[in-house]
């Protein structure tokens, strides 16, 4: 029997890696994927607690989060394509100005 706290620690480590990724990466697409890792870490906490409390509500919330992540990825990638079309780079350091 794996204790719930083991899953929580795994989720914390994944969330920390996602945070580091958001802070250190310069590629917009990898930055987006780091945000997805943070979302997945939160999902793992929800699933771990829904098993610990024997409630299936957490699964429903995780399903909704997955749907929202899909919508976010679609809109975010469309924005990346548009930014690339205007600036010809996806390096976030080049976006320090709103207008050039």
């Amino acid at each position, binding site marked *: 029997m794996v204790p719930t706290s083991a*899953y929580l620690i795994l989720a914390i480590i994944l969330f*920390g890696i996602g945070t580091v990724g958001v802070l250190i990466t310069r590629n917009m697409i990898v930055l987006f994927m*780091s945000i997805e*890792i943070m979302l997945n870490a939160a999902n793992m906490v929800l699933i771990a607690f829904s098993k610990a409390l024997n409630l*299936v509500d957490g*699964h429903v919330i995780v399903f909704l989060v997955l749907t929202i992540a899909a*919508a976010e990825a679609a809109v975010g990638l469309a924005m990346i394509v548009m930014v690339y079309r205007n600036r010809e*780079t996806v*390096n976030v350091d080049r976006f320090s100005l709103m207008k050039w």
Partner: protein
Amino acid sequence: MNFELIIFGISAVIAVFGATMMIAQRNPVASVLYMILSLIAQAVCYVQLGALFLGVILIVVYAGAIMVLFLFVIMLLNLRGEEASEQDTPAVSQFTKYVFSVLLTLELVFIVKAASLDSVATQVADQVADGFGSVRQVAQVMFTNYLYPFELTGILLLVALVGAVVLAKRERDSYSSATDDADDDRSERVVE
């Protein structure tokens, strides 16, 4: 040391390894592939927690559809490795970003330790009902208690679909002028 714990350990190590390699890679295609590795390991953890339906959904929707969308955009934009721009960012921000991310992670660890969750975990987790996390049980809750959130998610997906198309669409009417502008920008950048 029982069998479940070994499976959990292996999949947790693979999940953390995949996530770490994802942010460490310079080539975006490689980081997408490491992200898929991490997602598959996380799906194993979901199945271990009794979330059979969500484990399958994570692989089919996340690793299958969303990651392929990322891969598609990377190949559409023809991105190579990251441009070396370390000299652009000041040394202070180079340092502080690591410090703050480590601090945030430590804070989360302290919160979990302070909450003393082991009492919750060991008391109830052993008696999980049959069919927990199956499609039938998840659907029963989703279409009764969570019906309105579910319907709103459908509307959200529609909005995201329309928004993505509007954002990524090239204006047909001003096609020639838009390309002229782009050419101008390109020549300006060359001059710079």
